[in-house]
């Protein structure tokens, strides 16, 4: 059953659950952060409306800088502004930033230790018809390996708002990935959020399902299905992939002894990679990594693609059954 301390919505898995793009929460959070701290500035590379930075730009036009289509300039101008005491949020699509400008981020933000907040919208295959070029899947992997960098993938729009406010004050180089499509809103204003913490959303004893971003909701759906099949699944939400909350993950793995990770990104190097590294060093545990399996996406409708690439609650539940069969207690 749901962990009552998490204050989740009560209609998880229902067809009528409220959906909202995760990026919308970022838009609200940034405007609120701007109200709280005048050092907050925003920069965008010609995608102000679609990254939802327009909310801030309209509220604080004097603190908004339009960069045009130049992602290398986007992050390096941001680094310069951070050097002058500003707290810059820089947004584009994740495929372009950090996709195109990784070295500039590495040198001028991470190594240079400047608190620039890199916001990559439209991550994952749920971008849909735009196709593989725009479906960023490698961002978690390439950002997670960068020293000094915080990596965040909120599970829904409500959490994205909290994460944005937290990034505004963490004083660190940070990356946050956002999804384009309407994503079920499963957290509430009372759901706790702190950078660096993972949360046990549902307690269970047979298997641990660890999700990040859009896939945490699918893990909750899978846990509900598994409950019907007599399997008690624990669901852990990992909104902060780096630094990883090792304590929460290890405690759960110790209890259930079987782990599944789920993400709308390359499993290699992503959350799956991070959890596999942790477990293999500290508590060798059978693990299956649900995510993109070393391939690019393609055009299609978002739901159609999530099904085609095995990124649904039904798929997660199926993997759970397979793992429990393969590794009986």
């Amino acid at each position, binding site marked *: 059953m749901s962990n009552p301390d998490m204050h989740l919505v009560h209609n998880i898995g229902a067809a009528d659950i409220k959906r909202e793009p995760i990026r919308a929460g970022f838009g609200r959070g940034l405007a609120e952060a701007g109200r709280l701290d005048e050092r907050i500035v925003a920069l965008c590379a010609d995608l102000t409306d679609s990254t939802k930075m327009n909310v801030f730009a309209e509220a604080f036009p004097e603190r908004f800088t339009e960069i*045009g289509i*130049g992602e290398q*300039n986007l992050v390096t101008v941001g680094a*310069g502004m951070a050097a002058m005491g500003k707290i810059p949020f820089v947004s584009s699509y994740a495929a372009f930033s950090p996709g195109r400008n990784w070295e*500039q981020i590495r*040198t*001028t933000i991470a190594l*240079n230790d400047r608190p620039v907040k890199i916001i990559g919208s439209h991550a994952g295959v749920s971008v849909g018809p735009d196709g593989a070029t725009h479906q960023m899947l490698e961002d978690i992997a390439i950002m997670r390996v960068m020293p000094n960098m915080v990596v965040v993938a909120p599970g829904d729009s409500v959490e994205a708002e909290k994460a944005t406010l937290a990034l505004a004050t963490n004083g660190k180089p940070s990356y946050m990935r956002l999804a384009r499509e309407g994503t079920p809103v499963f957290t509430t204003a009372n759901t706790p959020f702190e950078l660096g913490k993972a949360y046990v959303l549902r307690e269970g004893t047979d298997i641990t399902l660890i999700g990040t971003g859009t896939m945490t909701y699918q893990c909750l759906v899978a846990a509900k299905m598994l409950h019907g099949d007599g399997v008690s699944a624990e669901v852990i939400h990992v909104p902060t992939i780096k630094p990883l909350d090792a304590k929460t993950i290890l405690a759960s793995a110790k209890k259930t002894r079987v782990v599944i990770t789920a993400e709308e990104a390359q499993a290699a190097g992503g959350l799956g990679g991070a959890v596999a590294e942790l477990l293999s060093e500290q508590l060798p545990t059978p693990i299956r990594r649900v995510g993109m399996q070393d391939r690019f996406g393609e055009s299609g409708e978002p739901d159609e693609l999530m099904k085609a690439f095995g990124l649904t609650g039904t798929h997660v539940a199926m993997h759970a059954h397979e793992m429990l069969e393969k590794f009986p207690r």
Partner: protein
Amino acid sequence: MSYTIQQLELKANTIREDIIKMLEHAKSGHSAGPLDLADIFTALYFDVMKHDPKNPDWEERDILILSNGHCVPVRYAAMAEAGYFDKKELMTLRKYGSRLQGHPERTRLPGLETTSGPLGSGLSQAAGMARSLQMDHNHTRWVYCVTGDGELDEGNIWEAAMFAGKYKLQNLIAIVDRNNIQIDGNTEEIMPLEDLHAKWEAFGWHVIEIDGHNIESIIDACSMARAIVEKPVVIIAHTIPGKGVPFMQYDYHWHGAPPNSQQAKEALHKLRTLDGKIRGEHE
């Protein structure tokens, strides 16, 4: 304190000597660029810029960004000469545990403003700083950004150029070290940059061309740049790679090589006698 042009010329010579000693001791590093930038860095640190070696984070200071980080020996030598740290530390260049990394790292040494090495990202950072000053309506601080010329092959530079032109960043002054060489050869053979003057103008900049070894010209150009309020300014400083050491001058092979001890000895002799113009070596 202010210096006469002649005093500044002697300082530039001292900085060149320090560069040779540092590179010889490090046994790796770049010779040509740091030597040809010695006059520009002397002018910046000892006349043009507002800064305080004893308070590197002074909030009213002017900012100097070295975009082509491989030329950092000239910056370290100028900083030591200005009193940021003891000259003895220059001999730790490129050594394990040193604050004087092979390419500059801001977090290691107070007084460095950015971390650089991978080319093309310094001007954008300088532009971001100037844009911040503009947002804060600050007209008392200046951002100077030294770039190489080979570095202008990078697209990031022209993204920054377009951006600075758009926002008319008057607090931004770029200085291009136009020494005509890069690692693989002469710039006009590797990837032609000319008409460089027209390129910058087309991006909305005011362009000043000077002899990059004439300290008075450097100071005057910076002074003029600060007086131009409607545009960012680029100073194209024509320089001789390896300047001051005859066997290094104009030869692109010295871009990324240090002198060995024999070559260093000869280079120091040339510098100390001003290439034979004075009989005895000055100290």
